[in-house]
């Protein structure tokens, strides 16, 4: 089995007799900063996973090495990358799809012993005993996608929506209750809502900006601008500076244009 830079290199095959296949680089996941979702000792790290490989395919393959707790993807190795990967695809009722790129994968086994078994697999074979690929591609996949994910059945969709909205209403209600009650939670934090006696103002950037701006503008409005001679002088100078600046700027642009030989009419 080929090894490189501490990684075990195995071919990823989609059919039994494929001659050229992608190489997946595997090793045990190890970083200094621990991530609770990728526990030390039980997580296998895969590099260079082709775009068409989905979570369940890996699940199927690696379940041979032991039962699996989770399979997660990320664009590149890193702390927040996994959440970023799932950020856009988590939403229901939207047509966003997972990224279709070469990616990295984390496989969390239930037992630590599975790691070594997995590393010893020799190849990732994405086909079943009859030599057929275990995931759908091409026309087959598109048909399925269209039928299942693109078109919705009105009746089913309605039911789903109703369920979701009921859940949403419940959450909303709970939140507003909490805001109204003004009680502190276990850590001692109090939720402050928009209503009630202790209503705080909305923590919005636009609002904050307005508040912050208020003070200087108030000061400014009291100021006399064209009163003292030095002010007039200064404003004149400012004016000259501005014109000069503009001139310089235009000159620079011309310089740029000149470089691209834009002044030869013929």
């Amino acid at each position: 089995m080929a090894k490189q830079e501490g990684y075990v290199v195995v071919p990823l095959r989609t059919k039994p007799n494929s001659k050229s296949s992608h190489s997946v680089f595997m090793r045990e996941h190890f970083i200094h900063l621990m991530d609770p979702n990728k526990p030390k000792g039980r997580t296998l790290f895969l590099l260079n996973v082709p775009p068409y490989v989905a979570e369940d395919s890996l699940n199927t393959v690696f379940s041979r090495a032991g039962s699996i707790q989770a399979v997660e993807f990320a664009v590149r190795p890193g702390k927040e990358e996994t959440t970023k990967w799932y950020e856009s695809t988590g939403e229901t009722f939207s047509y966003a799809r997972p990224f279709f790129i070469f990616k990295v994968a984390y496989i969390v086994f239930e037992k630590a012993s599975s790691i070594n078994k997995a590393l010893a697999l020799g190849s990732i074979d994405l086909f079943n005993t009859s030599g057929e690929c275990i995931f759908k591609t091409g026309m087959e996949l598109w048909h399925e996608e269209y039928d299942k994910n693109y078109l919705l059945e009105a009746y089913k969709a309605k039911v789903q929506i109703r369920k979701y909205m009921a859940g949403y209403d419940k959450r909303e209600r709970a939140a507003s209750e909490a805001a109204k009650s003004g009680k502190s939670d276990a850590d001692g934090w109090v939720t402050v809502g928009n209503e009630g006696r202790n209503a705080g103002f909305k923590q919005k950037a636009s609002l904050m900006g307005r508040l912050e701006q208020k003070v200087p503008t108030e000061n400014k409005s009291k100021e006399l601008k064209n009163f003292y001679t030095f002010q007039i002088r200064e404003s004149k100078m400012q004016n000259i500076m501005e014109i000069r600046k503009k001139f310089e700027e235009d000159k620079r642009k011309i310089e740029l244009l000149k470089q691209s030989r834009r002044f030869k009419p013929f």
Partner: protein
Amino acid sequence: MLKNKRKPGMFVRAPKKPSKNAEDSPAEDHSDQEQSTPSSDDGFDEPKPTPAKKDQTPTTKPKKNKFKQKDETKNVKPPTLEEMKELRDTQNLFHSNLFKLQVKEMLQELQLKSKYTDFIDSWLESFTAFTRQLKDGLMERTHLEVPLNISQKPTGFVFSKPTREPYLIGAVSTGTLLGPKIVVDVALEMPKESLHKDDYLNLRYDQKRALYLTYVTERMKESPNYAEDQFSFNYYANNPLKPVLELTPVAKQVTKHLQVRLFITAPLSSFKPGRFVPWNNNIRPSFFGDEWDEEEPLPSTQHYNANVLFDLTLSENQDYLEKAFKGRRNFQDGLLLLKVWLRQRGLDIGFSGFSAHILAAFIVYLNSHRILHQSSSSYQVARTVWNQLANTDWTKGISLAPAAIQTEELSKMATHYDVCFLDFTGQLNLCANVPLSVYQRVREEAKLAVDLLNDMKLNSFPLIFMQKCPLYSRVDNILKITNYSCVNQMLMLHSQPRLKYDYAKYGYPQLFQVLTELLQKGLAERVHSILPLETACTAWPVESKAPVIGKHIQLGLILQPDHAYEVLNKGPAANEDPEGAEEFRRFWGEKSNLRRFQDGSITEAVVWGTAQDAPSKKRLIVRQIVLHLLEHHLQLESKDVQYIAAELDQVYHLTPWFKVNKLKTKIPLDQDTDAEALSPHVIRCYDELARQLHGLNDLPLEIVSISGTSPVFRYCEPQPVLPQARMAEKYILANHVQRVVIQLGQSGKWPNELDALRALKLAFLIEIGEKLESQCHLKWLICIEGLLVLKQGYCFLIQLAHTKELALLKKKVTERGITTYVDNPESRSLERQHYILPKVSGALHSLHQTHSAYGPTVLLAKRWLATQLLDEGLWPEMATELLVAHLFQQRCAPQAIEAPQTGFIRFLQLLAHSDFNGELFLLNFNNSWQEQQIADLEHSYRSDRQSYPPLAVATSYDMQHAGRLWTSDESPSQRVLGHVTRLARHSLEIIETSIMSKDLRFVRPAQLFRASNEGYDLVIQLKPDLVPNTLSFDLGSPFVSFSQPNYLLPPAGADRLARIVEQLRSAYSDFAAFFYNPHGGKELAIVWRPPSVFAPKPFKVVELQACTPCDNGKVQVLKETLIEDFKLLLKDFYLRFATPEELKREQHEHQKPKRYFNASKQADESSTKPKKQNVQKDTEQEAPPKKKRLIKSSALKALN
């Protein structure tokens, strides 16, 4: 104190401006009114405010020093007087420094290098020496050919040596030589003695002149000084009576860049004064063997007379011009600017051209009339000339002669010419050969130039000086008559003898007269103008015979949109004006019928079509009329002439293989229809749907706005949309889905969570769908994107826009727990789809209403890009639409584009010549973008170019996203942009040569609308029956020959090929580029990235995509693996993978037998259309020159 010293000087006399900035010295007058009144000498007007402004300087100066002492860090340099003045001037006079700097920069670029001027001086010196040693003599015989077609035998010509030294004329004497090829005009005067007093008659003068030229040329050739030089003859300004010697010196310092033209002139005193006044006859009918009634006065030969006068008055005129221009850099530069402007517009070419010489004389004219001051700056000169050109009328005649010429005499002169501008001697009309239409065109262009200069929102410099706008791309239709026998027949039978004498039997102006007279009368208000399109004739070696020129003609027609498409020519009422009716009938021939109209009148009328005709058909009415007139009056059959109009429009027509009558629909459809004519049907159906939506009962919230956002709603869908969508089991089958965005009334109850909001939106759409079914009996389906509704065979996708969704998408909570709203790609695309696109769509729709050529131009442009294998992912369709809209909004020509084909040519010009890096395309719909905003945007664009995509387009509806909404870094990428530029240049070249050439026919659509097959590494052929063909007229794929087309309907909204290519690009674009024709292309072409991508590289965790380990610890990407991946991803979809070479070979083999059996199988082939097309195609494929292929392949390689 400074002020006091200066002021008196100011009032006394013109500011003695320091010579160091003589060019910009006088403050320039901005208002045109003042410039046009000669009384206010604006050169002096302005300086007054200038010293007033200068007052500031002394006052600020000392204080600033104080200030400087206080705060050294700021270090503001007090402005000097010169600096202040210059800054002020530029700001006040040129809108911006930019214009001034650009002009300055260009003038610098145009400045002649001293090596050329030195060379010219020394050459003239040596030539003078050469002429001095010439001796009188008899020309016995010559081994050169006399460059004149009507020459007698050269024997018997007595050469008398010139008594006057040769002198420089034209551009070189006024100091306004213009590159890249510098033409130095030198005149050599024949002495009086060599001319006889009767030589004025019957072209004898011209023969003498030609002989003289031949003699001098021969002596020059014998001289060792000129032995190495290249000698050739040419006609000056395509005038066959004006042969000149073109000499290209081999001197090292000027090789190839400089050419000397030798003119032969004669002194003015050679002939009796008044001999050549316009009303005299100097060519007798008997000279051409014609008979003339003795009783009748001889016809005047004003044009011939002017032609001779040109030579006779040359030296006098030259003196004046030289006096006016010598040492006046400002005038010279002004003239240079005007020359550049004129040449870019191609108005100075040929016999009927408006030469720069006229402009030079006009500058002197304005100067002598005190409209232009001595010290006006170059910019002022150009501006005043444009202004005066636009506001004066030369048809009544103007004169340069210093002795005040009588107005009566002037108008008597003017009656003999279209345009009259008398020279210094008061004898020659400088504009003798300029037809009225060309003069009008110059005036229009001048007016446009002034307008552009006045437009504060515009950087007018490139539009005026940089943009090449050859005349052929400024006319809507072109009439080309090149058939030799036809031309002869026209000249023999239809040209009046008067014209023949006047033009000394030169064919071109006669043809022009005959044709314009006829067409002007027949087309009347339908055309705005008829312009001659000339090409300068090429030089010929001195040993060969002078060619006969003027035996073909090209006319450009600019249509008048208000009248060009009228289907009826109404004549006088038959009972009221029988003579007029008779005349009308005679003019129109059998086409004219007596008709009774709804208002009860019975008149003669010609009908060219019906009011219901498709717009593309109506656009050809003018063509129909022209061809009819040519046939009826000049006996020219339509095969003898070429009328170039709408040749390319074919590509958006419905393909002939799809039979419309098989469709079950109530809408009346024609087999011979096109995408443009089909759009209104869709729009009508959409309007009805909108009505139904508005009328829905019991919706929880009202629908407040409905807007269609698909291209078809703004006439920009290049593939014909037919009412063929239908329901099949649980699917809706449709190849086009028209997007509609609706907005609901206000309500505070929408959820604050994105998912919940989307869920509710979906519920709403389902509700609307159900209501549509129950109340309007429409079929519908819900999909993740929205509501699919089927109506009258069209499929609509209704989407719900809600402002909260946008806000939620933008919402971000910062680390401090503050909510902010930040634009991100997702929110941007949603905002574009739901809010901005509807507005832009509306604006483009109204643009199409005002310029009916907008829609079809976009169709052509989109078809072209599609056939170059550029799809949405490489070049967004909206970018095309907006660029074309920019073309229509920008006033780069006096008249709007009326023919889609012309629009397409201009689109290609835009692509080919634009500086995408430096230019931001701004569409200021409704002019809502303020000057300051534009300036800010441009500033940001300039200073922060990196943050904008390679192609930046902005409209007035997307201010906060300006430049980043319609295009991105990926589409089009820098590479694709470069590729498109090269393709456009190439296409333009093909078009231009075919239009301007005498022999070629106009390009066939297949030459332009099919990509080359060179340069691709791999072609994936898809299963033909899985990809439906396009409904537009298909010119074939570059890779494979035609196969049986299929017009299967895919399920609505499932554009498989687009989606799979999108996936491939997202995963593999680092390794390969993917190309396909989005209009029914069945191949996917691949270009690998350069080999460096596939070279072994060291192991890096973040750069391991698609890598396989190779030797010595390195990794590399293998193409084979990638191909395996493609095969996997395209399972059941691809037919095979092949290299283009293989396909080419096959195509060849496939077609060979066909050609052999062509004759026998002809009947066979004509029955099956696809095959026939095929044969045509492959002959065409051989046609394009080899160069094209080379260019294309290198262009593609450069993509990497």
